[in-house]
């Protein structure tokens, strides 16, 4: 356990080496946030809109966009790229020699990056949200539930990225990630809340894990889920974590049989 804490720390300090990239990233996030806010302001000219789950006000929509943008800073991490790099350049051979679990190591790495992103990317968005935009705050129980589902969300998102990353053992290009990101962008509700979706797209998204890390936590934050739906969503999160964990184990075992170290 102690060594993984050390990995988190190292990965956090590594972030300092990419300060400029992080600041540019923060700027970029704020630009995208601004575009989103303007889009919703233009769409909700009446100040509110009726959806499948009730009436949504512009302030609620702004809160949605802000929370989604903050979640984005924690979930958009370089898990896939770090892994593909290590596998392609053979670094993985050294990793395997060390007395550590590769998945836990990758996870620890991500947590370090997350902490850095929390300080330098998430907090600026929160500040902008509170000072310039105005956002809603949840009740204490909803806030606690939100935090709990967010922890699960980070794990699920990691597992999906890890599964994509391991594909590099068979297909040495990293592009397969694009297909998953595409599904993710649409079905997670990161940009458009699922309550605006046509029914058939909502049905598809119910069979995918992506909405569990944007749409579900944000809905809990906004208080649009009934307690029963909340419980149901949390159970779904756990079910997906177990399924995805099983997949990572199977994939890892197959990958170890397949392992080809390039240029030894």
């Amino acid at each position, binding site marked *: 356990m102690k060594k993984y804490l050390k990995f988190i720390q190292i990965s956090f300090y590594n972030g300092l080496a990419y300060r*400029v*990239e992080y600041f*540019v*990233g923060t*700027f*970029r996030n704020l*630009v*995208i946030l*601004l*575009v989103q806010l*303007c*889009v919703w*302001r*233009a*769409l909700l000219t009446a100040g509110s*809109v009726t959806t499948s789950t009730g009436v949504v006000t512009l302030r609620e929509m702004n809160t949605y966009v802000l929370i989604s943008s903050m979640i984005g800073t924690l979930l958009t991490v370089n898990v896939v790229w770090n892994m593909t790099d290590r596998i392609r350049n053979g670094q993985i051979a050294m990793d395997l020699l060390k007395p550590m679990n590769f998945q836990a190591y990758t996870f620890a790495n991500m947590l370090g990056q997350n902490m850095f992103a929390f300080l330098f990317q998430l907090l600026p968005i929160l500040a902008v949200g509170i000072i310039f935009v105005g956002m809603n705050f949840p009740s204490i129980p909803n806030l606690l539930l939100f935090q709990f589902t967010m922890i699960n969300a980070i794990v699920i998102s990691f597992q999906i990225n890890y599964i994509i990353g391991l594909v590099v053992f068979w297909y040495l*290009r990293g*592009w*397969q990630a*694009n*297909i998953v*990101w*595409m599904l993710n*962008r*649409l079905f997670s509700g990161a*940009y*458009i809340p699922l309550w*605006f*979706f*046509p029914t058939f*797209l909502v049905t598809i998204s119910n069979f995918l894990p992506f909405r569990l890390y944007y749409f579900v936590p944000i809905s809990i934050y906004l208080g649009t889920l009934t307690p029963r739906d909340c419980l149901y969503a949390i159970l779904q999160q756990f079910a997906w974590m177990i399924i995805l964990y099983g997949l990572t184990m199977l994939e890892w075992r197959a990958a170890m049989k397949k392992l080809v170290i390039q240029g030894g």
Partner: protein
Amino acid sequence: MRTFKLSLRFFAAAVKSMLEYRLTTLIDIFTYILNFGVGYISTWVLLSKFQSIHGWTLYEVFFLFNINMVASGISGLFISSPMRGMEQMLQNGDFDMVLIRPMDSLFYTIIGRPNFTSTSALILGTGVFILCFTHLAIHITILKIVFLLAAILGAALIQTAILVVIGTMSFWLVKNTATYSLLNCFNNFLDYPITIYARSIQAFLTFVIPVAFVNFYPAHYFLNKTGDNLFFPALQYGTPIVGLVMFFMAYQFWKIGVNKYESTGS
């Protein structure tokens, strides 16, 4: 003429080397088409629900989005990988090779290194243009078609100029990833008509970093939009000129960068 012949030769060579990996290239193109497709699907979801955004309907927004898609496809096909690869070229000294060729340095850097995955944007863009033309009730004249083609070329030149500036920055900065995401992030404003933003942002996108000319102004003219409060009505026709001017300026900046270049000596 000689330049033209040479570029054809270089391009043919690049196509041949791409064909060595045709399956990989095809998979890449396919995944990019899906990926870009999500942008259109998102717009479709939003505008099926809300009908229009600031008076622009679904196919009008598609048309707007699409000019940028095709223009970035063209600049991406020819310019993006050499310019993004500039930092690498400068670090390992390959740029010395460019300087000893009897050719313009920018031309030689760019030519022969096309990025074929960008054809995905061209394929998808052409498809969506056809879709838009069948759904939009606009009277199409020869003049309009000529204008559209000129505007797309102008838009591609604007995107090219931005990429050349990013590449040239490598002469001063060791890494250009930060410059790339910084300058590229203004493209995020182009997915919707710029009239949804505050007046100051519209002014910024028109006069400071004039990316609004990539798609908003030409689309405004082509779709006969009225009611949007433009700074000057003449801006609608500006894209080809703005493209040429920006490219010229970027080219001058490139020359300053080349003059400043000192080889790593490896």
